[in-house]
């Protein structure tokens, strides 16, 4: 027998490479990612990018239209609001609040959701039943309405808005985690890990969790866009971030009175919310397609 070197080993792409290729093929997701990155950079480097402080007033430039209109001033790209504050700077600083708060909200919701979902998925009987029914109750009320009810109980304000939106988002995580655990539990590799002697907690963290990450990541992206909308909505209703705060929903509600005098003060934060949510959803879509467990054997 001869050892021939021309027979090469077959290169099999790793999971990350496969995911990367699939994601790149999704044009919408790439576009979404592009916008999301811009927004992210804007929020991180807000003090550098924004020309003025969000609270700084220019009394001589009240309700200045955006720069591209005839009456516009090049110093205020998106114009100024009724108090003479630069809309562009406020939007940039607002993105910090919107993205940052949503991230906190999703983080809290995911932690509690995964924990409760894991408990429900790994146990049987009363504990599972009570967790699930509690989640059903939360899901039965429209999410924004529930957030309003919670705020009505614990009082308005930014921290309370975070708690309220997080609570509203928890059930989705619980359901996904529990359903995935129930599905994975009967698979051979979990049985094999059980035979290795792993207890339930270890089974969850070492075997099951890595394998249910794809649906979880998709859920995180969905929750993220819901969180942005809900926080903006609470701000708009005056239940979340309070006025001088440049939170997008709050800006909207404040400028609502001047919608005819200064339409840009309403349109621009609205468009900001729209673009952010849209791009997150596009990225989420791409993630779902790329993480779809069609690969494997």
């Amino acid at each position: 027998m001869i050892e021939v070197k021309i027979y090469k080993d077959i290169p099999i792409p790793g999971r990350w490479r496969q995911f990367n290729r699939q994601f790149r093929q999704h044009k919408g997701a790439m576009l979404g990612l592009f916008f999301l990155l811009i927004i992210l950079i804007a929020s991180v480097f807000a003090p550098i990018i924004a020309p003025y402080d969000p609270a700084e007033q220019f009394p001589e430039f009240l309700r200045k239209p955006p720069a591209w209109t005839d009456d516009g001033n090049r110093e205020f790209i998106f114009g100024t609001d009724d108090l003479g504050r630069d809309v562009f700077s406020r939007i940039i600083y607002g993105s910090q609040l919107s993205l940052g708060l949503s991230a906190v909200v999703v983080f809290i919701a995911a932690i509690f959701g995964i924990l409760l979902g894991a408990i429900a998925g790994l146990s049987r009987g009363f504990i599972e039943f009570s967790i699930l029914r509690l989640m059903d109750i939360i899901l039965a009320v429209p999410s924004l309405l529930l957030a309003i009810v919670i705020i009505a109980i614990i009082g308005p304000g930014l921290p309370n808005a975070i708690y309220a939106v997080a609570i509203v988002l928890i059930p989705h995580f619980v359901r996904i985690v529990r359903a995935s655990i129930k599905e994975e539990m009967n698979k051979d590799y979990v049985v094999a890990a059980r035979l290795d002697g792993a207890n339930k907690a270890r089974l969850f963290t070492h075997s099951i969790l890595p394998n249910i990450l794809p649906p979880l990541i998709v859920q995180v992206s969905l929750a993220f866009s819901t969180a942005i909308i809900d926080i903006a909505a609470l701000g708009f209703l005056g239940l979340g971030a309070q006025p001088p705060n440049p939170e997008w929903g709050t800006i909207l509600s404040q400028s609502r009175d001047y919608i005819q005098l200064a339409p840009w003060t309403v349109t621009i934060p609205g468009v900001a919310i729209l673009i952010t949510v849209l791009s997150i959803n596009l990225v989420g879509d791409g993630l779902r397609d790329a993480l779809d467990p069609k690969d494997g054997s």
Partner: protein
Amino acid sequence: MTDLVLSVENISKTYKYSSLGFRQQNIFALDNISFKLRRGQTLAIVGESGSGKSTLARLLVGCDNPTTGKIFIEEQDVFELSKSDQKKQFKKIRMVFQNPYSSLNPHARIGTTLEEPLKINTNLSSHDRKLAVKHALKRVGLREEHASRFPHMFSGGQQQRIAIARALILNPDVIVADEPLSALDVSVQAQILNLLMDLQEELKISYVFISHDLGVVEHISDQVLVMYRGKLMEYGEVDQIFDHSKHPYTRKLLSSTPSYRHTVNYKFKKIDPEFKKLANLKSGCVFASRCSYAEEKCIDEVPKTRFLKGHRVTCHWPRED
């Protein structure tokens, strides 16, 4: 160290089944199975789908508890032990699954998967564990550097090798292999079969080899246990089962397998459809409705397992040659 590594006495497994809470019924997945397995020997369990082979495998590795009956591992009744000792005792029996890909965690590197049982069950140092993993990989014919790869980067045959390495890593006495070849390609099956036999001779492991392929069973086993619908039909040494089978079901299996048909030449009468219907209604011998030797007694009375010249046969009319 005793010679008798695994002995099972009269184990049964029943599942309770009820429709809408009414009429609770017991379903016998396993009914009164007994066998003994010596060190370095192979017991093959043969049967069609629904015969309870896989249920038996789950009981043997401690994945499930039998409803009644005893399991002795190295002559120690495991159900007399405390829970933690029982777990420890069951670690001497390890399992290899039918589908190698699904039995490996797709998101864990091979090394991690192989190390896991050591981490949980031993207090070896990280260095010693890594060494043991390397050793196990070499033993099943893989290379050290394979430890850092993921399961999907291997072919089916290699995946099954990894699954075997995982079973080996705790130095078990017995490996329960549930149809370990049927998910593999024909040209790879022989590799795995050879590997199993190499390991047996080297390490004196015993196998409980579950299979539907009589050719493979004849090749690898020392004893054969034939099951049908959860019941033991025939149990004996491989020569006895293949050359002097006494149970009609064993004969039927042998004569249905293409390569055996010419050598065994058993004759079967056609079964009367009326009789078949009757047999399905009454609770006699489970095989009566498909048995071409069945008579009145078979549908009225459950046959007892009896001992006949090195066989155990559950039949009213065991065949003579």
